[in-house]
């Protein structure tokens, strides 16, 4: 079934900062808009437009930064508009070279104290919640906020739970937290408004390694529930925390 822009309004090109553009494919997260953003960024990198210095994606948009001394806004905006015309980005396939990661996680316990609270907000028991987190692989929809940190989705509609109003002062690296039908797997220890429901021993940002970033947008993450005792063993094993990967595309 062909997927076309969800409204005639999209995509839009907007200035961001003094030296950037944001190309937005939708104002809410959809599968098509997410794929469009990934595909358009790849095309943008391939196009080698004059003055473009850096590109990135977030959930449904592409950002680019350019050298103000190499190109002006009007010229670059026109080039971006022309590139947007070249394909139906919403129908683009996911990137190639994707991996499926199996990541052991302990849910609940003192390591992840908000499982019960989050499950209750979704109208589920803790066991039902764990079953839903682990039922299918979750897609890496974006990398952002902190180095190598994925937004994983999409969970079933009952997980459209809000962030808590107050901040949890600190969750540890490897924490799994849930809100708005997504999970975040934290790559650094940080304050958060997302509820901490699981804990992994996966280090997503390893700056001392040749490739410091473990996950890429489009990768899939299958969470595998383990007991606290199993987790403590895994934690000693390696920086990947028992995670394994295989190619999916």
């Amino acid at each position: 079934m062909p997927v076309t822009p969800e409204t005639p309004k999209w995509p839009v090109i907007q200035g961001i900062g003094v030296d950037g553009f944001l190309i937005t494919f939708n104002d809410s997260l959809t599968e098509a808009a997410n794929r469009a953003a990934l595909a358009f960024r790849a095309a943008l990198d391939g196009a080698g437009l004059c003055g473009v210095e850096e590109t990135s994606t977030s959930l449904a948009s592409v950002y680019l930064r350019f050298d103000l001394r190499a190109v002006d806004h009007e010229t670059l905006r026109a080039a971006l508009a022309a590139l947007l015309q070249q394909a139906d980005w919403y129908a683009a396939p996911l990137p190639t070279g994707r991996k499926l990661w199996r990541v052991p996680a302990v849910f609940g316990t003192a390591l992840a104290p908000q499982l019960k609270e989050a499950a209750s907000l979704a109208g589920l028991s803790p066991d039902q919640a764990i079953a839903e987190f682990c039922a299918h692989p979750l897609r890496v929809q974006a990398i952002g906020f902190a180095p190598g940190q994925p937004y994983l989705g999409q969970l079933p509609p009952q997980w459209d739970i809000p962030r808590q109003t107050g901040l949890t002062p600190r969750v540890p690296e490897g924490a799994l937290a849930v809100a708005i039908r997504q999970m975040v797997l934290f790559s650094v220890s940080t304050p958060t408004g997302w509820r901490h429901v699981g804990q992994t021993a996966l280090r997503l940002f390893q700056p001392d390694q040749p490739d410091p970033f473990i996950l890429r947008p489009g990768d899939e993450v299958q969470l595998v529930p383990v007991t606290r005792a199993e987790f403590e063993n895994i934690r000693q094993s390696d920086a990947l925390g028992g995670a394994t990967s295989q190619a999916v595309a």
Partner: protein
Amino acid sequence: MIREIVVHRAGPGVTIQDMGRAGWLAQGLSRGGAADRLALAEGATLLNQPDDLAAIEIAGSFLGLEASTPTRIALTGAPMRALCNGDPLAWQSSHALQAGARLELSGSAGGYSYVHFGGGIAADVILGARSAHLAAGLGQMLEAQDKLALGADSGGRVGMTFTPLPRFDGGTLRLVETPQTRLFSQAERTRFTQTPFRKDARANRMGQRLVAEGAGFGTDGGLSILSETIVAGDVQITGDGAPFVLLSECQTTGGYPRIGTVLPCDLPRLVQAPANASLRFTFVPLPEAAALERLEAARRDALRSKLRPLIRNPHDMPDLLAYQLVSGMTRGDELEGPST
């Protein structure tokens, strides 16, 4: 002998900084680097060396160090009281330290101060830069007993000074609109530009919260914004209605509405404002902002032409008395600078 610096004492927020790591945004790593990149460029100019070398950033605290060998230094950014073996050194200037010289820096009024070394600090390069990025867990704050190796110094003249771009007393920060600016009503945007702000004591290299008298700022209705790329200079309005200006070490994506983005050339004015200084915002059209950035880039390229010798014949200095009084850091006989 190994060219190195030994840290004798270091207050909080003393880190190694350079121009940061551009190019990792897609992997969730913000550029980081010096809070005041202009000060880095100024130090590089004073020492006649590339501006991508690493220096020490002091976030309003203190630092004491010793040079193992003769070392050229430059002092830029927020002025501090600088003593070399007990003798005052002029800020915004380059100097020569003798082997074993003790440098003591204190008395910051706030903001970010920089010590540059001939050859730069030869810290490990991680992902293309030497700067500490504390939020990402790269590098750490300096501590007493740390030893910092220096790179090879191509050498050059010291005892040079210049007049820095004014930015140490608050003032007006220019903004461009963001895709979310229009989510704030015209009345709210007008009130925002008419409100004097001060820096909140809570600040770090990720961002600066601002405070003001009166009600906080907000959008109409409970808008939820899909998380998207954010850039340094973005002014987020967080839940409590206070503006939060994102700085070099900020997160790479966010979902709070942003009322505007501070021009990169005005960020030094924000980060260098003392705690009690008044800050205001004004919107400028994008073409004007782009022109201002191009002008600033050209001005930085020409910094070298603004250098003048610190050592001046008093007969050539009609402003001698004012110079001493204003700087507050030199005695008359110190205008000779350290002996080389």
